[in-house]
């Protein structure tokens, strides 16, 4: 008896000592998030809901009345509608290609990863050197005799052209980002399932549709979620390619802060971007919900 009691006492003590540990371990993260995310966010809301005269919605009023607001909003949404679906299809294809483990397939991974290593502004400037009237693309087109006169790709009078040009640059730049998440998800799918489907005579597209796709849903959810959030923040590529020919929400937030020196309206834009990101995130979470019993693990 006594020996048992003596043995359990230190065990209990040890247990008590470890109970609080998880909280201590997440404390640095909580402090970090609190100081660098939560507090600035509260400050941002504070700035947006105030002006020189006190609390109110004047900053939002100024924002909505500004001619650029509607344009920024529509261009941002237009970009998302064009870019995200194309990117998703491409990223899924690229991830499948990598997952097929073809001989020398590793080289694709390195090629695909290259754009991720380049800053978005640098990418924007590189693409502007390609698309500008006397740029690389026109030089090649003229060289092969496809056009007689250089074509003006960066023509701000044509919204369609601007969307196309920005979409090409953005797709080049950030498709890999989605691919990495999808590729990781693919690797987590046990080969047995796919092989079993193959044994039962499922073709490639059937396997993708009925086996891979459902099991990949959580990864798709994460990929779309992050991509949409980043899409509302798109900035440098648009600025570098279109100048003042087109504008997006993040660019307007920057302009109101840096050029017009009005931090209240800039903060109002940030609040709008935050709201849209949250709404998009909620939409993705609901639409691509995977019931607990269907999850892997």
């Amino acid at each position, binding site marked *: 008896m006594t020996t048992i009691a003596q043995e359990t006492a230190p065990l209990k003590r040890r247990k008590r000592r470890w109970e609080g540990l998880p909280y201590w371990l997440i404390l640095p993260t909580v402090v970090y998030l609190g100081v660098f995310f939560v507090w600035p966010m509260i400050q941002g809301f504070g700035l947006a809901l105030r002006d020189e005269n006190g609390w109110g919605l004047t900053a939002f009023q100024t924002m909505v009345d500004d001619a650029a607001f509607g344009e920024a909003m529509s261009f941002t949404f237009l970009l998302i509608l064009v870019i995200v679906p194309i990117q998703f299809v491409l990223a899924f294809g690229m991830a499948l290609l990598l997952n097929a483990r073809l001989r020398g397939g590793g080289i694709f991974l390195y090629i695909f990863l290259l754009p991720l290593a380049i800053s978005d502004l640098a990418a924007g400037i590189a693409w*502007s050197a390609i698309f500008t009237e006397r740029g690389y693309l026109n030089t090649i087109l003229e060289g092969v005799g496809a056009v007689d006169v250089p074509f003006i790709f960066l023509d701000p009078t044509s919204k369609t052209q601007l969307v196309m040009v920005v979409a090409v640059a953005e797709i080049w730049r950030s498709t890999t980002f989605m691919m990495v998440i999808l590729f990781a998800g693919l690797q987590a799918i046990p080969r047995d399932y796919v092989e079993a489907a193959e044994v039962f005579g499922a073709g490639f597209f059937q396997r993708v549709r009925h086996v891979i796709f459902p099991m990949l849903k959580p990864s798709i959810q994460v990929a779309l979620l992050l991509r949409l959030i980043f899409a509302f923040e798109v900035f440098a590529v648009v600025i570098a390619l279109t100048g003042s020919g087109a504008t997006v929400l993040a660019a307007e937030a920057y302009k109101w802060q840096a050029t017009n020196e009005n931090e209240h309206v800039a903060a109002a834009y940030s609040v709008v971007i935050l709201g849209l990101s949250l709404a998009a995130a909620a939409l993705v979470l609901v639409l691509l919900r995977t019931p607990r019993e269907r999850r892997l693990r």
Partner: protein
Amino acid sequence: MSTDNDHEHDVSPWDEPFDRRSALIKAGGVGAILALGGLAGASRATAGPVQNAGDVTAFFGQFGGIAEQEGIRKFVFKGFRGNVDPVFAPISAPNLFVDRVRAEAKAGKGNIDVLVGLHGDFVTFQNEGLIRGVDDVAKQVKSLPAPLVKIGKLGTKTQFYVPHSQATYVMVANKDVLKYMPKGADINALTYGQVFAWAKAIRRGTGQNRFGLPASDTGLLHRFLQGFLIPSFTGGFVTGFRSKEAVAAWTYMRQLWEYTHPQSLTYAFMQDPLLSEEVLLGWDHVARLKTALDQRPDDLVAFPVPKGPKARSYMPVIVGLAIPKNAPNPAGGKALIRHMLTIGAQAQILSLTGFFPAAGGRLSKSISPGLLAEAAAVRKQQKAPDAVQALLPIGIGAEGGNFSKIYRDTFTRIVRNGENIQAVLKEQGDLLQEIFTKTGAPCWAPDPPSGKAPCRVK
């Protein structure tokens, strides 16, 4: 020639009762002529410091381009006895210059010893009590023209900044399109009508719009509107904003835009499209044309800005040197100011940035042909009998950003979106009036003086 200018030439600016704004116009002209008259190539040490000046931090609100920064770090502080730490406000966010000085004052701890900024920046600093007097330095440097020195007093008895260099905006054409210039036009005395006819003829001749303006967000299109187009048509910045003449100016702009390269909305520095020949006729700040003129002096020609129905209006840019109130090493700061006003340092600034020195001297033979051509165009522009200087806003402080936004928004709505000119001018005019009602700033040249009352949009 406008009546204002007649008056200027009749009376010596030194003898008049002092008025900051009119002195600025007069001195700008006189000073620029003196300065452009030349610059000695050989470095001639002026009252240089004997002992070591210690660690000196210089904060640049101008010259923030990468090549400019690098050149300034390498060459401008050569021969200065002390350690200079140059810090540059980014070109894309020039407001950071004023913001940081304000922030340091609020924080109660200064890190900057010398400020390199525009006249307008110092007006703000002086209003907010952020800079100290530098009378002793200004007195030590003998080569500075008196009218420019007077501008640096900002209408007070104290010297708040020492004038350092100056610039303006000119037009540049590729020699290939000179043949499309309207018959009988003098390239050094063009009118806005002739520029339009020229741009149109270029399109007819080349099949493309080859006239260009720096209309991206970081371009200086708003300066073209504020200091060149509108005052040339209306004779002022603010008072005539909604006038019949302003409607004519915007109608003109809308028509000119038809013949303007659509990629203008992506141009920040016109030197790039001029070099790639996307643009064959353009307008910009001399510092943003310098690389093109330097690289292809034989293919490009620089010339004065055109004249409108009221005047040949242009905007001068004056850069000065000052010391913040809370500078940690003010003695070192003064030594650095003296160094930066030596002929050698100023010659370096000229060849690095295209800003012409304020101090007198002879133009060096070693200055590139491109810069010489630019200097010649600036001189012709300043000497033109009908030239009028449109100064940057004075006394509107933090509203400077909004002031420029109004002109850019007006441009977007009228020229790009094709909205009704009168309606837009009415709305934007109200916004413009708000700035003056709020800040109480009186009119400045070339608008007729409003005394102490806030400037009014008629």
